[in-house]
């Protein structure tokens, strides 16, 4: 090729163009052999021009090469066809990327179509991708890439789909995408978007025709959707209505579920309904049956069955409620008590004289107390009695004593005149009883009371009776009044009669235990039978008999069923009790309001001979239900059978655990188990069955798995960092260089396994932690101690040894709190130093002794359990007790539990025939306290006291168990004498408490009708 006269320049130009002139204009412009249009020609020229300008070494060379290019273009222009008239945007004068050869390959001819159709203007492959090279497919892909944010998973799927449709393989597609990427880089944003805009819209593929079911579902979905969107007002109203109906439906279901009776209740209701229907049928039958006109007195006797006495209504009465004045008077009690205290002080100043005003005041107070006492709370009753005795205590002269006691004069057997007479007379009699036994009163007072009691209330002074002298003599007065009231049937106005009896019943219930009330009712019933004032005829006597029959519990589970049975026997055998009275009694027992087990043939013929009486009696006794509780039931505790079984299993098992425990920790675990069991029985006694059940579950778990449930961390054995002294030496060599010291201290953290240091290194590190200087060194040392060595025993010992060197600052306090997990008092507190030392010492002990934490946590658990028992037992008495806040110490908790038991015992009175007093128990408790020099033995001492108080309580409540109770106490004393450790003594004592409580538990009768079915 020759471009001019200069061969060297020609060669340079040829080299720049890549070919000589002889190659032809097409080769010079980089065009192929196919037809070209002007646009292609111009584009090729522009491209080659830019290439020359960028690659030419000199300007002159570039001009020469460009001249050749233009000559070649001019040569081809005449033969080039007309192209589209558009302006090829001049590319920006940015560096042209190196030419990359593009070798597009198509494995199969693309199908015709807008997507992969042929380019209208086939483009000769060139080193660069230009807009002219882009096919519609390319533009489409480009648009996808641009809109999809480039080549990513989403655009990849779309493009792959297009490629598949176009019949392009993966390699081809990759080239297309690479080329487009190159184009995008070259053209920039404007050029790219320009080509994207030219992409042809690809019509969406038509959706497949839905099937019939699918179309139906779609229509329905569409319709529901429209409805739920509430597009129209009617759809909105329909929605409201629908949701309203749903809400009402669920509301009805909820109410039904909540109010529906349980199966047991349903069963009970059903049985009650059946019984009522039976009663109604019987009443109807009796009404329609032929009436024997003489049956009310002498019934017609049919073989085997005596016609019972019939009444228009079942014999029964109820008096009116307590007069409202009583309620009003209750509010005056505190003032009256204060008045008596003032009166007592005045009398002290002048013991020989009782002014009339004082006497009136005294009488008014006595009257007030007498007409309100059954409605007083127990503590107020005690205050009232104390105030009365306080006045009498200063009545040293006989004259004053006489005048004061005149207000207490009582004749229990005098006719009742007014409904509150039973209350007044019972109160005065009770106070007389208290006066007789109160040794602090002057003899002048006691002598008068003693004389009156002997005359009008003969019997024991009641000091050993259940309820004490007040209950004993007050009850005795009521019994005497009962006899009087029986005699007054038909004499006293009917209203007064019934109201007086109502007050009588109320006084009995306030004064006595249930079995004593039962005995009083039975005795009164016997009196009614004996007096026989118009029984059989409608009237107060018969109504009284009916009321008494209803009040008495004739079931096998009633209080003192044996006494009732004995009384019935006595009545039937007593020839002085008229047969008619027994006939009425039998009729009432068999009547609609009678008892279930009493059969019609037990109704006694009023004309029956003694032999017939005995025969009927024998039949009755045969049918009499067996008592479910021992004689003199007292206050037995019904408990669910399952729980009783569990207790019966756990008591011997826990005894074995206590016996076999060896180490201190095992003994503490055994003690905890016993305390929990005692808590469970106390909760059962307090009728907190569900809580008791949960606690019993804890004990079962402990016995079965030997796991107490107390969180005790596993013992730690941190690895001691080797080469003891190396760190200390390094630190020493670092001298005063703070940065070096910090680095050396920090390096301790590199050994992730070490949890403790040797003694010398520990000394060095702790020295820095306390007194490191500057502060940065100290802070780093403290951080390392907390992060790496907080469980290191050597470090802990060193911390304790040298804590005195630490500054008394807030930082030090925080550091120690973080290190020991203890809470320190204020730094101004006098106890601060001791508290710090204590915290560090405890932390050191916890690391040096693996058992220490476990023992302390078990002790805490024991304390909490005992305190819970004290609180549960406290619920039995009205007065509350403030228990201290914070973690309870076991011995303090035990003292609280013993105190609670004592308070319960104080509310009781000596069991009949008791040979001990509360004072004796208190004295023994005090003696044991003196034996206890440490918390563990104090715990034992208090537990023994609680056991003794408990036995005292149970003897009063369940006298029939006295023998077993005493035997258990003997065994408990033997256990203590044989025990080799305080903890074992404590555990065995607590287990005896459980045994005592168990003695008064019986299986709960789950029959809702009791023994009447």
């Amino acid at each position, binding site marked *: 090729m020759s471009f001019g006269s200069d061969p060297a320049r020609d060669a340079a130009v040829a080299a720049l163009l890549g070919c000589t002139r002889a190659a032809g204009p097409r080769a010079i412009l980089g065009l192929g052999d196919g037809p070209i249009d002007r646009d292609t020609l111009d584009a090729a020229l522009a491209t080659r021009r830019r290439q020359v300008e960028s690659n030419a070494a000199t300007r002159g060379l570039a001009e020469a090469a460009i001249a050749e290019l233009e000559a070649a273009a001019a040569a081809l222009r005449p033969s080039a066809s007309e192209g589209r008239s558009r302006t090829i945007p001049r590319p920006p004068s940015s560096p042209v990327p190196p030419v990359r050869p593009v070798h597009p390959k198509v494995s199969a001819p693309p199908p015709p179509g807008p997507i992969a159709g042929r380019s209208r203007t086939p483009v000769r492959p060139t080193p660069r991708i230009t807009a002219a090279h882009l096919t519609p497919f390319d533009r489409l892909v480009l648009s996808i890439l641009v809109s999809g944010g480039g080549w990513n998973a989403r655009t990849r799927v779309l493009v792959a789909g297009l490629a598949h449709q176009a019949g392009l393989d993966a390699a081809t597609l990759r080239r297309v995408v690479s080329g487009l990427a190159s184009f995008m880089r070259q053209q920039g944003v404007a050029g790219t978007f320009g080509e994207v805009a030219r992409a042809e819209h690809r019509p969406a593929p038509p959706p497949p025709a839905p099937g019939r079911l699918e179309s139906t579902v779609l229509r329905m979905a569409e319709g529901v959707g429209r409805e739920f969107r509430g597009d129209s007002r009617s759809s909105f109203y329909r929605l409201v209505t629908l949701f309203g109906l749903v809400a009402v439906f669920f509301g009805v279901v909820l109410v039904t579920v909540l109010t529906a009776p349980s199966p047991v209740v349903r069963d009970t209701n059903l049985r009650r309904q059946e019984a009522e229907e039976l009663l109604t049928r019987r009443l109807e039958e009796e009404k329609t049956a032929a009436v024997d006109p003489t049956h009310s007195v002498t019934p017609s006797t049919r073989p085997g069955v005596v016609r019972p006495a019939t009444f228009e209504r079942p014999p029964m009465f109820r008096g009116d409620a307590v007069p409202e004045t009583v309620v009003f008077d209750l509010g005056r009690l505190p003032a009256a008590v204060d008045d008596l205290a003032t009166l007592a002080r005045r009398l002290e100043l002048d013991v020989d004289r009782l002014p009339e005003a004082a006497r009136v005041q005294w009488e008014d107070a006595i009257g007030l107390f007498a007409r309100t006492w059954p409605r007083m709370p127990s503590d107020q009753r005690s205050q009232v009695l104390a105030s009365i005795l306080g006045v009498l205590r200063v009545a040293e002269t006989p004259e004053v004593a006489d005048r004061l006691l005149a207000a207490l004069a009582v004749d229990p057997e005098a006719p009742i005149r007014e409904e509150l007479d039973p209350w007044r007379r019972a109160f005065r009699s009770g106070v007389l009883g208290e006066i007789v036994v109160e040794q602090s009163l002057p003899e002048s007072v006691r002598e008068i009371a003693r004389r009156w009691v002997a005359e009008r209330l003969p019997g024991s002074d009641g000091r050993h009776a259940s309820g004490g002298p007040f209950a004993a003599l007050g009850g005795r007065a009521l019994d005497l009044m009962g006899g009087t009231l029986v005699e007054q049937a038909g004499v006293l106005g009917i209203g007064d009669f019934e109201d007086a009896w109502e007050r009588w019943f109320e006084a009995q219930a306030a004064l006595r235990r249930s079995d004593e009330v039962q005995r009083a009712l039975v005795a009164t019933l016997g009196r009614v039978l004996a007096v026989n004032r118009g029984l059989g005829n409608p009237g107060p006597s018969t109504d009284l008999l009916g009321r008494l029959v209803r009040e008495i519990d004739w079931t096998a589970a009633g209080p003192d069923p044996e006494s009732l049975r004995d009384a019935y026997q006595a009545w039937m055998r007593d020839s002085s009790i008229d047969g008619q009275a027994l006939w009425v009694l039998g009729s009432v027992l068999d009547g609609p309001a009678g008892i279930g087990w009493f059969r019609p043939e037990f109704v006694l013929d009023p004309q029956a001979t003694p032999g017939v009486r005995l025969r009927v009696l024998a039949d009755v006794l045969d049918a009499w239900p067996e008592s479910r509780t021992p004689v003199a039931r007292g206050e037995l505790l019904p408990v669910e059978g399952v729980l009783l079984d569990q207790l019966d299993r756990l008591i011997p098992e826990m005894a074995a655990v206590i016996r076999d425990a060896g180490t201190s920790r095992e003994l503490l675990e055994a003690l905890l188990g016993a305390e929990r069991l005692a808590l469970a029985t106390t909760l059962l006694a307090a009728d907190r069955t569900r809580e008791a059940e949960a606690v019993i579950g804890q004990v079962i778990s402990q016995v079965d798995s030997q796991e107490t449930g107390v969180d005790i961390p596993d013992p730690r054995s941190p690895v001691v960092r080797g080469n003891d002294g190396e760190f200390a030496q390094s630190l020493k060599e670092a001298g005063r260089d703070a940065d070096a010291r910090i680095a050396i201290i920090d390096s301790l953290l590199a050994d992730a396994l070490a949890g403790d240091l040797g003694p010398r290194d520990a000394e060095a590190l702790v020295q820095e932690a306390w007194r490191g200087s500057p502060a940065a060194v100290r802070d780093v040392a403290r951080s390392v101690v907390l992060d790496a060595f907080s469980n290191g025993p050597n470090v802990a010992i060193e911390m304790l040894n040298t804590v005195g060197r630490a500054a008394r600052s807030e930082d030090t306090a925080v550091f120690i709190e973080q290190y020991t997990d203890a809470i320190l008092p204020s730094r101004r507190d006098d106890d601060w130093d001791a508290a710090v*030392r204590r915290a560090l010492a405890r932390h050191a002990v916890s690391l040096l002794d693996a058992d220490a934490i476990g023992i302390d946590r078990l002790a805490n658990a024991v304390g909490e359990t005992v305190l819970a028992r004290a609180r549960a037992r406290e619920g039995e008495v009205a007065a509350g007790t403030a228990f201290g806040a914070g973690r309870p110490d076991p011995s303090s908790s035990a003292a609280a539990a013993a105190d609670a038991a004592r308070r319960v015992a104080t509310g009781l009175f000596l069991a009949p025939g008791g040979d001990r007093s509360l004072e004796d128990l208190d004295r023994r408790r005090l*003696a044991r306290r003196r*034996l206890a020099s440490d918390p563990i033995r104090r715990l*034992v001492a208090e537990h023994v006291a609680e056991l003794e108080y408990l036995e005292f309580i149970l003897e009063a409540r369940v006298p029939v168990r006295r023998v077993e109770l005493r035997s258990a106490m003997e065994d408990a004393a033997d256990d203590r004498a044989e*025990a080799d450790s305080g903890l074992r003594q404590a555990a065995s004592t607590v287990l005896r408490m459980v045994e005592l409580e168990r003695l008064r538990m019986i299986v709960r009768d789950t029959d809702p009708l009791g023994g009447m079915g």
Partner: protein
Amino acid sequence: MIDRGMARVGRGGLPSVIALAACLLAGAAAPMVPADPPPRGFDLQARLEDLDPARPIEYLELAEEIAEGLATGESADRVLARRLYGLAGRLDPDRLAASAALGLASLATDARTKERYRAAASLLDPESVRSVTADRPEVDAETALEIGEAFGDFRSGRTIGLRRALQDPARERLIQGWDHALPGGIEWLRRQTEAGGRQRPVVDRTDALAMIRVELALLDRGRPQWSTLLALEGDPPIVDLRVDRVPSLLLDDAAASRPRHRGGAWVE
């Protein structure tokens, strides 16, 4: 005997020396017997003969006179004093039983027996005994802290604080109360502190734990954690007496039925 031997020696001669040596050897070989009690100021036998069950106080008074100045260890006098105390308590339980129990406690040769008798006295008359068990002296917070710091310094090689504490009678008494719990006892601590120097004493972890527990016991001032309590005091059982068994504790029934002393023997 020795005096006589010395006299022979004084008159000289080998036989005398041999005799002296024999005396010395005999004296050395003689069994150790308690020295005779100091002569009483009264005729014991006469006093015993005069005892009358109708005057129980005389039994108590005679027992106190005999018990006064008794040497340690079992002796006939000690046995006699016990019997007299027991008889006093059995003959007049209402007035003399508590005193008799205290008297018997003073004659007890072991701590447990002493505690039982003091417990009996407390049971019979709570006011007669303030505390049955051997009490440790009370410690105030400042002293407890001071001793704790002294222990810590001791473990670090600074013994002067502990040395000063041991030189103070009150503090020494406090530390003495924990002698059984301290490693090597108080005497070892004293020797270490008197050795001087800044050499850290050898205190291994077990010893350190024991000392730290004593510190805690002092710092907790009567309300120690149970781990500390069990480690230091153990877990002894409480002495639990039954009131109905106290008389037999004072004196068994057989001896109590023979309150008179006639012809050198106790008779009914």
